[in-house]
């Protein structure tokens, strides 16, 4: 297994952790009657996110943001791995991505501004660099 694939598997597990971090407080705050309902806006009184506490809503947005990041990162890892183009640069990028996505969670939850955006940009740049490296 290439280091990029290890980082990808850990990023997938990180997403599982983010689910737990978000859904446990969300269920405690709203009650299972609401969370297991079909979440119709008229019955819930708006979007699910609007009913959550500030911190839990941030964790909700952090989870959704990681989906976007994870899709792009998966693509970069698949392209680098399947075309046998793993280099020290792409390996470093993969670990930097993972580190940035770990830090992104407390940065969002505790409202570290502008660090959240900077941490996000580091992860995004690492992914983009992997994609560019695979093409040249």
């Amino acid at each position, binding site marked *: 297994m290439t280091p990029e694939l290890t980082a990808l598997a850990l990023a997938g597990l990180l997403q599982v952790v983010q689910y737990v971090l978000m859904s446990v407080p969300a269920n405690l705050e709203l009650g299972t009657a609401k969370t297991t309902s079909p979440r119709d806006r008229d019955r819930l009184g708006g979007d699910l996110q609007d009913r959550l506490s500030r911190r839990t809503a941030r964790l909700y947005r952090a989870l959704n943001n990681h989906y976007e990041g994870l899709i*792009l990162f998966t*693509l970069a890892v698949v392209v680098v791995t399947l075309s046998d183009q793993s280099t020290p640069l792409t390996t470093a990028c993969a670990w930097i991505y993972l580190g940035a996505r770990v830090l992104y969670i407390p940065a969002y939850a505790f409202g570290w501004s502008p660090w959240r955006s900077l941490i996000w940009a580091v992860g995004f740049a690492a992914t983009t660099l992997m994609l560019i490296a695979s093409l040249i």
Partner: protein
Amino acid sequence: MLSDELSLLAIYGLLVALLLGLKTTGMIGQLGMGYVLSSRDELRTPRGMIGRLDRALNNSVTALALLAPAIAILALRDNFSDATRVAAQVFLLARLIYIPAYAFGIVGLRTLAWIAGFAATVALYFLAL
């Protein structure tokens, strides 16, 4: 050496990254740098062309999530052919049309481009099977 389909996938990934950069730049202009850097506890939705770029980005990410497995399956099975290359090229071309068509609000063209990209993705799955 990259096979063509994997290169096209990487190029599409960069296109999505570029679109994300455009949207974020627009959001900074429209909603303010302070809001973009904040925890966004208050919901502010981008309007006009920036809103369209935002929706085009979300759509492009879902298209990417659907396309990537098809290309990965084809690559892992060594199943690339002329047909899969053409389908991947059609996909990329369609998405290259889709983004400006959405941004400038060209009704009809946007939907046609979306259908072409979607059909190319479905074709890749059939070719993979």
